[in-house]
Protein backbone atom coordinates (compact mmCIF):
# COMPACT_ATOMS: atom_id res chain seq x y z
CA UNK A 1 0.00 0.00 0.00
CA UNK A 2 2.62 2.54 1.13
CA UNK A 3 4.91 1.44 -1.65
CA UNK A 4 2.10 1.87 -4.14
CA UNK A 5 1.51 5.44 -3.04
CA UNK A 6 5.20 6.27 -3.18
CA UNK A 7 5.53 4.77 -6.64
CA UNK A 8 2.43 6.37 -8.09
CA UNK A 9 3.27 9.80 -6.68
CA UNK A 10 6.44 9.87 -8.75
CA UNK A 11 4.71 8.74 -11.95
CA UNK A 12 1.95 11.28 -11.41
CA UNK A 13 4.52 14.01 -10.80
CA UNK A 14 6.22 13.22 -14.11
CA UNK A 15 2.92 13.24 -15.99
CA UNK A 16 1.80 16.43 -14.27
CA UNK A 17 4.98 18.15 -15.39
CA UNK A 18 4.34 17.20 -19.00
CA UNK A 19 0.71 18.23 -18.72
CA UNK A 20 1.72 21.63 -17.36
CA UNK A 21 3.81 22.08 -20.52
CA UNK A 22 0.84 21.05 -22.61
CA UNK A 23 -1.50 23.56 -21.06
CA UNK A 24 0.96 26.38 -21.59
CA UNK A 25 1.04 25.89 -25.33
CA UNK A 26 -1.34 25.32 -28.24
CA UNK A 27 -0.99 23.20 -31.40
CA UNK A 28 -0.54 26.40 -33.39
CA UNK A 29 2.54 27.27 -31.30
CA UNK A 30 3.98 23.84 -31.93
CA UNK A 31 3.41 24.10 -35.68
CA UNK A 32 4.86 27.58 -35.71
CA UNK A 33 7.91 26.27 -33.87
CA UNK A 34 8.24 23.39 -36.30
CA UNK A 35 8.08 25.82 -39.23
CA UNK A 36 11.00 27.94 -38.08
CA UNK A 37 14.22 27.11 -39.92
CA UNK A 38 16.34 27.52 -36.75
CA UNK A 39 14.26 24.99 -34.91
CA UNK A 40 14.25 22.60 -37.87
CA UNK A 41 18.03 22.82 -37.89
CA UNK A 42 18.16 22.21 -34.13
CA UNK A 43 15.92 19.15 -34.44
CA UNK A 44 18.07 17.77 -37.24
CA UNK A 45 21.34 18.40 -35.40
CA UNK A 46 19.96 16.99 -32.16
CA UNK A 47 18.73 13.78 -33.74
CA UNK A 48 21.89 13.23 -35.78
CA UNK A 49 24.35 14.07 -33.00
CA UNK A 50 22.50 11.98 -30.40
CA UNK A 51 22.46 9.02 -32.76
CA UNK A 52 26.19 9.32 -33.48
CA UNK A 53 26.80 9.62 -29.75
CA UNK A 54 24.68 6.54 -29.12
CA UNK A 55 26.61 4.42 -31.63
CA UNK A 56 29.98 5.63 -30.33
CA UNK A 57 28.91 5.04 -26.73
CA UNK A 58 27.82 1.46 -27.39
CA UNK A 59 31.01 0.69 -29.34
CA UNK A 60 33.09 1.96 -26.42
CA UNK A 61 30.86 0.62 -23.64
CA UNK A 62 30.78 -3.02 -24.79
CA UNK A 63 34.53 -3.71 -24.49
CA UNK A 64 34.86 -1.67 -21.28
CA UNK A 65 31.85 -3.40 -19.73
CA UNK A 66 33.21 -6.78 -20.81
CA UNK A 67 36.65 -6.28 -19.31
CA UNK A 68 35.25 -4.86 -16.11
CA UNK A 69 32.79 -7.74 -15.70
CA UNK A 70 34.94 -10.68 -16.76
CA UNK A 71 38.48 -9.86 -15.68
CA UNK A 72 40.13 -9.01 -12.43
CA UNK A 73 43.11 -6.76 -12.56
CA UNK A 74 45.09 -4.37 -10.45
CA UNK A 75 43.45 -1.02 -9.67
CA UNK A 76 40.08 -2.30 -10.91
CA UNK A 77 38.28 -0.40 -8.16
CA UNK A 78 40.07 2.80 -9.16
CA UNK A 79 39.22 2.35 -12.85
CA UNK A 80 35.65 1.65 -11.80
CA UNK A 81 35.51 4.96 -9.93
CA UNK A 82 37.14 6.84 -12.83
CA UNK A 83 34.40 5.56 -15.14
CA UNK A 84 31.83 7.26 -12.94
CA UNK A 85 33.49 10.68 -12.97
CA UNK A 86 31.42 12.02 -15.91
CA UNK A 87 28.24 11.01 -14.07
CA UNK A 88 29.26 12.76 -10.86
CA UNK A 89 30.66 15.95 -12.41
CA UNK A 90 28.34 18.92 -12.83
CA UNK A 91 27.63 19.43 -16.55
CA UNK A 92 29.34 22.83 -16.56
CA UNK A 93 32.54 21.25 -15.28
CA UNK A 94 32.49 18.69 -18.09
CA UNK A 95 32.19 21.54 -20.60
CA UNK A 96 34.91 23.62 -19.01
CA UNK A 97 37.25 20.62 -18.72
CA UNK A 98 36.78 19.82 -22.40
CA UNK A 99 37.43 23.45 -23.32
CA UNK A 100 40.65 23.40 -21.30
CA UNK A 101 41.68 20.01 -22.71
CA UNK A 102 41.53 21.38 -26.23
CA UNK A 103 43.75 24.29 -25.21
CA UNK A 104 46.62 22.00 -24.18
CA UNK A 105 49.43 21.04 -26.57
CA UNK A 106 47.68 17.75 -27.30
CA UNK A 107 44.38 19.52 -27.93
CA UNK A 108 45.99 22.20 -30.07
CA UNK A 109 47.58 19.47 -32.20
CA UNK A 110 44.12 18.07 -32.95
CA UNK A 111 42.67 21.55 -33.48
CA UNK A 112 45.37 22.34 -36.03
CA UNK A 113 44.07 19.48 -38.17
CA UNK A 114 40.39 19.66 -37.37
CA UNK A 115 38.68 22.47 -35.53
CA UNK A 116 36.74 21.04 -32.62
CA UNK A 117 35.93 23.84 -30.16
CA UNK A 118 32.67 25.67 -30.95
CA UNK A 119 31.84 23.35 -33.87
CA UNK A 120 29.37 20.50 -34.23
CA UNK A 121 32.17 18.05 -33.40
CA UNK A 122 32.25 19.70 -29.98
CA UNK A 123 28.54 18.97 -29.66
CA UNK A 124 29.11 15.26 -30.24
CA UNK A 125 32.14 15.09 -27.93
CA UNK A 126 30.30 16.88 -25.14
CA UNK A 127 27.34 14.52 -25.48
CA UNK A 128 29.58 11.48 -25.74
CA UNK A 129 31.58 12.24 -22.58
CA UNK A 130 28.46 12.04 -20.42
CA UNK A 131 26.29 9.59 -22.36
CA UNK A 132 29.05 7.00 -22.66
CA UNK A 133 29.45 6.81 -18.89
CA UNK A 134 25.83 5.71 -18.60
CA UNK A 135 26.25 3.15 -21.38
CA UNK A 136 29.40 1.75 -19.73
CA UNK A 137 27.62 1.37 -16.40
CA UNK A 138 24.73 -0.45 -18.08
CA UNK A 139 26.99 -2.83 -20.04
CA UNK A 140 29.07 -3.57 -16.93
CA UNK A 141 25.94 -4.60 -15.01
CA UNK A 142 24.59 -6.54 -18.01
CA UNK A 143 27.74 -8.62 -18.50
CA UNK A 144 28.12 -9.18 -14.74
CA UNK A 145 24.65 -10.64 -14.54
CA UNK A 146 25.19 -13.13 -17.36
CA UNK A 147 26.62 -16.37 -16.00
CA UNK A 148 29.87 -17.17 -17.79
CA UNK A 149 29.18 -20.92 -17.76
CA UNK A 150 27.86 -21.01 -21.31
CA UNK A 151 30.95 -19.22 -22.58
CA UNK A 152 33.15 -21.74 -20.82
CA UNK A 153 31.21 -24.63 -22.30
CA UNK A 154 31.62 -23.05 -25.73
CA UNK A 155 35.35 -22.81 -25.12
CA UNK A 156 35.56 -26.54 -24.25
CA UNK A 157 33.60 -27.31 -27.43
CA UNK A 158 36.29 -25.68 -29.54
CA UNK A 159 35.20 -22.05 -29.78
CA UNK A 160 37.97 -19.54 -29.39
CA UNK A 161 37.67 -16.52 -27.08
CA UNK A 162 36.47 -14.28 -29.87
CA UNK A 163 33.79 -16.68 -31.07
CA UNK A 164 32.48 -17.29 -27.59
CA UNK A 165 32.19 -13.53 -27.10
CA UNK A 166 30.39 -12.81 -30.37
CA UNK A 167 28.21 -15.93 -30.61
CA UNK A 168 27.47 -16.72 -26.98
CA UNK A 169 27.78 -13.64 -24.80
CA UNK A 170 26.67 -10.81 -27.09
CA UNK A 171 23.32 -12.38 -28.12
CA UNK A 172 22.50 -12.89 -24.45
CA UNK A 173 23.33 -9.24 -23.75
CA UNK A 174 20.98 -7.95 -26.45
CA UNK A 175 18.46 -6.31 -24.19
CA UNK A 176 21.26 -4.79 -22.10
CA UNK A 177 22.84 -3.32 -25.22
CA UNK A 178 19.48 -1.86 -26.25
CA UNK A 179 19.04 -0.32 -22.83
CA UNK A 180 22.56 1.12 -22.94
CA UNK A 181 21.92 2.51 -26.41
CA UNK A 182 18.60 4.10 -25.55
CA UNK A 183 19.98 5.52 -22.31
CA UNK A 184 22.93 7.03 -24.16
CA UNK A 185 20.66 8.43 -26.85
CA UNK A 186 18.26 10.00 -24.37
CA UNK A 187 21.10 11.42 -22.29
CA UNK A 188 22.69 12.92 -25.42
CA UNK A 189 19.40 14.47 -26.55
CA UNK A 190 19.00 16.28 -23.24
CA UNK A 191 22.62 17.38 -22.85
CA UNK A 192 22.93 21.14 -22.42
CA UNK A 193 25.52 22.44 -19.95
CA UNK A 194 28.69 21.07 -21.55
CA UNK A 195 27.45 21.98 -25.03
CA UNK A 196 26.80 25.59 -24.03
CA UNK A 197 30.38 25.97 -22.83
CA UNK A 198 32.26 23.77 -25.28
CA UNK A 199 30.22 24.30 -28.46
CA UNK A 200 28.61 27.71 -27.81
CA UNK A 201 25.06 28.71 -28.62
CA UNK A 202 25.44 29.72 -32.26
CA UNK A 203 22.14 29.71 -34.10
CA UNK A 204 22.04 27.43 -37.15
CA UNK A 205 25.45 26.00 -36.23
CA UNK A 206 25.80 24.47 -32.79
CA UNK A 207 22.19 24.91 -31.73
CA UNK A 208 20.68 21.69 -30.41
CA UNK A 209 17.15 21.44 -29.00
CA UNK A 210 18.04 22.26 -25.37
CA UNK A 211 19.93 25.31 -26.67
CA UNK A 212 16.81 26.32 -28.59
CA UNK A 213 14.74 26.14 -25.43
CA UNK A 214 17.31 28.34 -23.69
CA UNK A 215 17.52 30.87 -26.53
CA UNK A 216 13.77 31.08 -27.08
CA UNK A 217 13.36 31.71 -23.36
CA UNK A 218 15.99 34.44 -23.53
CA UNK A 219 13.93 36.35 -26.07
CA UNK A 220 10.89 35.91 -23.89
CA UNK A 221 9.33 33.52 -26.38
CA UNK A 222 8.20 31.14 -23.67
CA UNK A 223 5.49 29.62 -25.86
CA UNK A 224 8.07 28.48 -28.43
CA UNK A 225 10.36 27.23 -25.65
CA UNK A 226 7.55 25.07 -24.30
CA UNK A 227 6.63 23.90 -27.80
CA UNK A 228 10.22 22.77 -28.41
CA UNK A 229 10.27 21.08 -24.99
CA UNK A 230 7.20 19.10 -25.98
CA UNK A 231 8.81 18.11 -29.27
CA UNK A 232 11.78 16.83 -27.24
CA UNK A 233 9.58 14.98 -24.77
CA UNK A 234 7.58 13.36 -27.56
CA UNK A 235 10.58 12.28 -29.64
CA UNK A 236 12.47 11.02 -26.58
CA UNK A 237 9.47 9.09 -25.31
CA UNK A 238 8.81 7.58 -28.72
CA UNK A 239 12.36 6.34 -29.22
CA UNK A 240 12.56 4.88 -25.70
CA UNK A 241 9.19 3.19 -26.12
CA UNK A 242 10.12 1.65 -29.47
CA UNK A 243 13.38 0.37 -28.00
CA UNK A 244 11.61 -1.10 -24.97
CA UNK A 245 8.96 -2.79 -27.13
CA UNK A 246 11.54 -4.17 -29.52
CA UNK A 247 13.94 -5.16 -26.75
CA UNK A 248 11.36 -7.08 -24.75
CA UNK A 249 9.41 -8.60 -27.62
CA UNK A 250 9.52 -12.03 -26.03
CA UNK A 251 8.38 -10.82 -22.64
CA UNK A 252 5.44 -8.66 -21.83
CA UNK A 253 5.45 -4.93 -22.41
Amino acid at each position, binding site marked *: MVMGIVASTYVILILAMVLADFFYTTPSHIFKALASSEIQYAIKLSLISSTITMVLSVIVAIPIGYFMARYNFKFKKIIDAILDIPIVLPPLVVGLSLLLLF*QTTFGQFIESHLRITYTIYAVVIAQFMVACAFAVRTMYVTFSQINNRQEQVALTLGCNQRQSFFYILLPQAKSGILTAASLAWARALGEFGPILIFA*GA*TRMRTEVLPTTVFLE*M*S*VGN*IEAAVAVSLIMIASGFLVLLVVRLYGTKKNTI
Partner: protein
Amino acid sequence: MGKSCIIALFILFFLMVGCKKKQEQKSLLLYCAAVVKPVLEEVVKVYYKETGIQIDLQYGGSGTLLANLRIAKQGDLYLSADASYMQQAIKYNLIKESKPLVAITPVLAVVVNNPKQIKNIKDVCTEGVRFGIANPDAASIGSVTKNMLVASGDWDTVKNCIYVQMPTVSDVSNALKLKTIDVGVIWDVTANQYKEIDTVKIDFFNEFKEYATVGVLKSSKQEKEALEFMSFLLHNAKSKRVFKKLGYNMY
Protein backbone atom coordinates in the same frame (compact mmCIF):
# COMPACT_ATOMS: atom_id res chain seq x y z
CA MET B 1 17.49 -1.55 7.59
CA GLY B 2 14.06 -0.08 6.84
CA LYS B 3 13.94 1.66 10.18
CA SER B 4 17.37 3.21 9.85
CA CYS B 5 16.46 4.37 6.36
CA ILE B 6 13.43 6.21 7.66
CA ILE B 7 15.41 7.74 10.51
CA ALA B 8 18.10 8.89 8.08
CA LEU B 9 15.45 10.40 5.83
CA PHE B 10 13.99 12.30 8.77
CA ILE B 11 17.39 13.64 9.80
CA LEU B 12 18.11 14.78 6.25
CA PHE B 13 14.72 16.42 6.08
CA PHE B 14 15.37 18.38 9.26
CA LEU B 15 18.78 19.43 8.01
CA MET B 16 17.11 20.72 4.86
CA VAL B 17 14.59 22.69 6.89
CA GLY B 18 17.62 24.19 8.65
CA CYS B 19 19.01 25.27 5.29
CA LYS B 20 15.68 26.80 4.40
CA LYS B 21 15.64 28.78 7.65
CA LYS B 22 18.94 30.29 6.68
CA GLN B 23 17.50 31.12 3.29
CA GLU B 24 14.62 32.89 4.97
CA GLN B 25 16.91 35.31 6.74
CA LYS B 26 16.07 38.75 5.54
CA SER B 27 17.18 38.70 1.93
CA LEU B 28 16.39 40.22 -1.44
CA LEU B 29 16.68 38.53 -4.81
CA LEU B 30 18.33 40.58 -7.54
CA TYR B 31 18.36 39.43 -11.16
CA CYS B 32 21.70 40.78 -12.28
CA ALA B 33 23.04 41.19 -15.84
CA ALA B 34 26.46 39.60 -16.22
CA VAL B 35 28.17 42.90 -17.10
CA VAL B 36 27.81 44.35 -13.60
CA LYS B 37 28.56 41.10 -11.77
CA PRO B 38 32.03 42.04 -10.42
CA VAL B 39 30.88 45.33 -8.93
CA LEU B 40 27.57 44.05 -7.56
CA GLU B 41 29.33 41.21 -5.76
CA GLU B 42 31.42 43.76 -3.86
CA VAL B 43 28.59 46.18 -3.17
CA VAL B 44 26.43 43.38 -1.83
CA LYS B 45 29.13 42.46 0.68
CA VAL B 46 29.37 46.07 1.82
CA TYR B 47 25.59 46.29 2.11
CA TYR B 48 25.42 43.12 4.19
CA LYS B 49 27.99 44.54 6.62
CA GLU B 50 26.02 47.78 6.93
CA THR B 51 22.49 46.48 7.23
CA GLY B 52 22.57 42.69 7.73
CA ILE B 53 20.37 42.27 4.67
CA GLN B 54 21.58 39.61 2.29
CA ILE B 55 21.16 40.32 -1.42
CA ASP B 56 21.04 37.11 -3.45
CA LEU B 57 22.28 37.63 -6.97
CA GLN B 58 21.12 35.61 -9.91
CA TYR B 59 23.30 36.16 -12.95
CA GLY B 60 22.61 35.72 -16.63
CA GLY B 61 22.16 37.56 -19.89
CA SER B 62 19.67 40.42 -19.65
CA GLY B 63 17.21 38.64 -21.94
CA THR B 64 17.51 35.33 -20.13
CA LEU B 65 16.88 37.00 -16.80
CA LEU B 66 13.88 38.91 -18.12
CA ALA B 67 12.31 35.65 -19.31
CA ASN B 68 13.02 34.05 -15.94
CA LEU B 69 11.39 36.78 -13.94
CA ARG B 70 8.41 36.87 -16.28
CA ILE B 71 7.73 33.21 -15.56
CA ALA B 72 8.71 33.07 -11.90
CA LYS B 73 7.04 36.38 -10.97
CA GLN B 74 9.31 36.44 -7.94
CA GLY B 75 12.27 38.45 -6.83
CA ASP B 76 12.80 42.05 -5.81
CA LEU B 77 15.10 43.80 -8.24
CA TYR B 78 16.20 43.56 -11.87
CA LEU B 79 19.41 45.01 -13.20
CA SER B 80 19.53 44.99 -17.00
CA ALA B 81 22.63 45.74 -19.02
CA ASP B 82 20.88 48.36 -21.12
CA ALA B 83 17.73 50.43 -20.99
CA SER B 84 16.00 48.50 -23.80
CA TYR B 85 15.50 45.43 -21.60
CA MET B 86 14.20 47.62 -18.80
CA GLN B 87 11.75 49.11 -21.31
CA GLN B 88 10.57 45.61 -22.17
CA ALA B 89 10.19 44.78 -18.50
CA ILE B 90 8.15 47.94 -18.02
CA LYS B 91 6.04 46.97 -21.01
CA TYR B 92 5.32 43.64 -19.34
CA ASN B 93 4.21 45.57 -16.28
CA LEU B 94 6.93 44.12 -14.07
CA ILE B 95 8.69 47.25 -12.88
CA LYS B 96 7.70 49.60 -10.12
CA GLU B 97 10.51 52.10 -10.48
CA SER B 98 13.77 52.16 -12.43
CA LYS B 99 16.93 54.27 -12.59
CA PRO B 100 20.03 54.25 -14.81
CA LEU B 101 23.11 53.06 -12.91
CA VAL B 102 26.34 52.91 -14.92
CA ALA B 103 27.49 53.87 -18.38
CA ILE B 104 28.82 51.03 -20.51
CA THR B 105 30.24 51.14 -24.01
CA PRO B 106 30.80 48.23 -26.40
CA VAL B 107 34.41 47.59 -27.42
CA LEU B 108 36.21 45.31 -29.83
CA ALA B 109 38.20 43.09 -27.50
CA VAL B 110 41.23 41.02 -28.42
CA VAL B 111 43.63 38.67 -26.68
CA VAL B 112 46.28 40.68 -24.81
CA ASN B 113 48.93 42.24 -27.11
CA ASN B 114 46.66 41.60 -30.09
CA PRO B 115 48.61 38.69 -31.64
CA LYS B 116 46.31 38.56 -34.69
CA GLN B 117 46.85 42.28 -35.41
CA ILE B 118 43.19 43.22 -35.45
CA LYS B 119 42.73 46.91 -36.22
CA ASN B 120 39.16 47.34 -37.38
CA ILE B 121 35.88 45.48 -37.54
CA LYS B 122 36.59 44.13 -41.05
CA ASP B 123 39.63 42.25 -39.69
CA VAL B 124 37.38 39.76 -37.91
CA CYS B 125 36.83 38.15 -41.31
CA THR B 126 40.55 37.49 -41.83
CA GLU B 127 41.42 33.84 -42.39
CA GLY B 128 42.32 32.13 -39.10
CA VAL B 129 40.68 34.74 -36.88
CA ARG B 130 37.99 33.37 -34.58
CA PHE B 131 35.34 35.99 -33.87
CA GLY B 132 32.92 35.47 -30.98
CA ILE B 133 29.90 37.51 -29.99
CA ALA B 134 27.23 37.20 -27.36
CA ASN B 135 24.00 35.78 -28.67
CA PRO B 136 21.83 38.65 -30.00
CA ASP B 137 18.77 37.04 -28.40
CA ALA B 138 20.17 36.17 -25.00
CA ALA B 139 22.40 39.07 -24.03
CA SER B 140 22.28 42.83 -24.21
CA ILE B 141 25.78 43.10 -25.67
CA GLY B 142 24.72 40.60 -28.35
CA SER B 143 21.80 42.69 -29.52
CA VAL B 144 23.88 45.88 -29.31
CA THR B 145 26.61 44.20 -31.40
CA LYS B 146 24.07 43.30 -34.04
CA ASN B 147 22.46 46.76 -34.03
CA MET B 148 25.81 48.52 -34.32
CA LEU B 149 26.97 46.42 -37.23
CA VAL B 150 23.61 46.70 -38.98
CA ALA B 151 23.79 50.50 -38.59
CA SER B 152 27.34 50.65 -39.96
CA GLY B 153 26.41 48.36 -42.85
CA ASP B 154 28.93 45.68 -41.80
CA TRP B 155 26.48 43.10 -40.48
CA ASP B 156 25.87 41.29 -43.76
CA THR B 157 29.58 40.56 -44.24
CA VAL B 158 30.53 40.13 -40.59
CA LYS B 159 27.68 37.80 -39.67
CA ASN B 160 29.23 35.10 -41.86
CA CYS B 161 32.51 35.44 -39.97
CA ILE B 162 30.99 34.80 -36.56
CA TYR B 163 32.73 31.71 -35.26
CA VAL B 164 30.65 31.31 -32.12
CA GLN B 165 27.78 32.90 -30.19
CA MET B 166 27.63 32.70 -26.41
CA PRO B 167 25.00 33.34 -23.75
CA THR B 168 26.56 36.27 -21.85
CA VAL B 169 29.29 38.90 -22.03
CA SER B 170 31.23 36.95 -19.39
CA ASP B 171 31.33 33.87 -21.60
CA VAL B 172 32.80 35.87 -24.47
CA SER B 173 35.38 37.42 -22.12
CA ASN B 174 36.26 34.02 -20.68
CA ALA B 175 36.71 32.65 -24.18
CA LEU B 176 39.18 35.48 -24.90
CA LYS B 177 40.99 34.71 -21.66
CA LEU B 178 41.19 31.01 -22.59
CA LYS B 179 42.20 32.07 -26.12
CA THR B 180 39.48 29.91 -27.65
CA ILE B 181 38.52 32.97 -29.69
CA ASP B 182 40.77 35.78 -30.97
CA VAL B 183 38.38 38.71 -31.01
CA GLY B 184 34.95 39.53 -29.64
CA VAL B 185 32.60 42.36 -28.81
CA ILE B 186 32.17 42.99 -25.08
CA TRP B 187 31.47 45.91 -22.74
CA ASP B 188 34.35 48.23 -21.83
CA VAL B 189 33.77 47.68 -18.12
CA THR B 190 34.02 43.92 -18.58
CA ALA B 191 37.25 44.29 -20.55
CA ASN B 192 38.65 46.31 -17.62
CA GLN B 193 38.23 43.32 -15.32
CA TYR B 194 40.54 41.09 -17.38
CA LYS B 195 44.26 41.62 -17.64
CA GLU B 196 44.27 39.04 -20.45
CA ILE B 197 42.12 41.26 -22.67
CA ASP B 198 43.09 44.34 -24.71
CA THR B 199 40.71 46.57 -26.60
CA VAL B 200 40.86 48.03 -30.09
CA LYS B 201 39.45 51.51 -30.55
CA ILE B 202 36.54 51.61 -32.99
CA ASP B 203 35.05 55.10 -33.21
CA PHE B 204 31.48 54.28 -34.17
CA PHE B 205 31.16 51.87 -31.24
CA ASN B 206 31.16 54.90 -28.91
CA GLU B 207 27.85 56.07 -30.33
CA PHE B 208 26.26 53.01 -28.77
CA LYS B 209 26.90 53.90 -25.17
CA GLU B 210 24.29 52.27 -22.96
CA TYR B 211 23.22 52.56 -19.35
CA ALA B 212 22.87 49.54 -17.12
CA THR B 213 19.58 50.15 -15.39
CA VAL B 214 18.28 48.94 -12.06
CA GLY B 215 14.61 48.57 -11.22
CA VAL B 216 12.41 47.41 -8.36
CA LEU B 217 10.00 44.65 -9.34
CA LYS B 218 6.28 44.83 -8.75
CA SER B 219 6.46 41.23 -7.54
CA SER B 220 8.64 42.30 -4.59
CA LYS B 221 7.13 41.56 -1.22
CA GLN B 222 9.78 43.72 0.44
CA GLU B 223 9.39 46.82 -1.60
CA LYS B 224 10.72 49.17 1.06
CA GLU B 225 13.93 47.16 1.48
CA ALA B 226 14.31 46.85 -2.30
CA LEU B 227 14.00 50.63 -2.75
CA GLU B 228 16.47 51.16 0.07
CA PHE B 229 19.01 48.92 -1.60
CA MET B 230 18.48 50.68 -4.92
CA SER B 231 19.13 54.02 -3.34
CA PHE B 232 22.22 52.63 -1.55
CA LEU B 233 23.49 51.34 -4.89
CA LEU B 234 22.94 54.70 -6.60
CA HIS B 235 23.88 57.22 -3.95
CA ASN B 236 25.86 55.76 -1.06
CA ALA B 237 29.49 56.87 -0.96
CA LYS B 238 30.73 53.35 -0.17
CA SER B 239 28.90 51.94 -3.16
CA LYS B 240 30.28 54.71 -5.38
CA ARG B 241 33.77 53.89 -4.16
CA VAL B 242 33.41 50.25 -5.24
CA PHE B 243 32.17 51.29 -8.68
CA LYS B 244 35.11 53.63 -9.07
CA LYS B 245 37.63 51.06 -7.85
CA LEU B 246 36.48 48.53 -10.44
CA GLY B 247 36.47 51.05 -13.28
CA TYR B 248 32.75 51.64 -13.71
CA ASN B 249 31.49 55.14 -14.48
CA MET B 250 28.29 55.85 -12.64
CA TYR B 251 25.41 57.63 -14.34
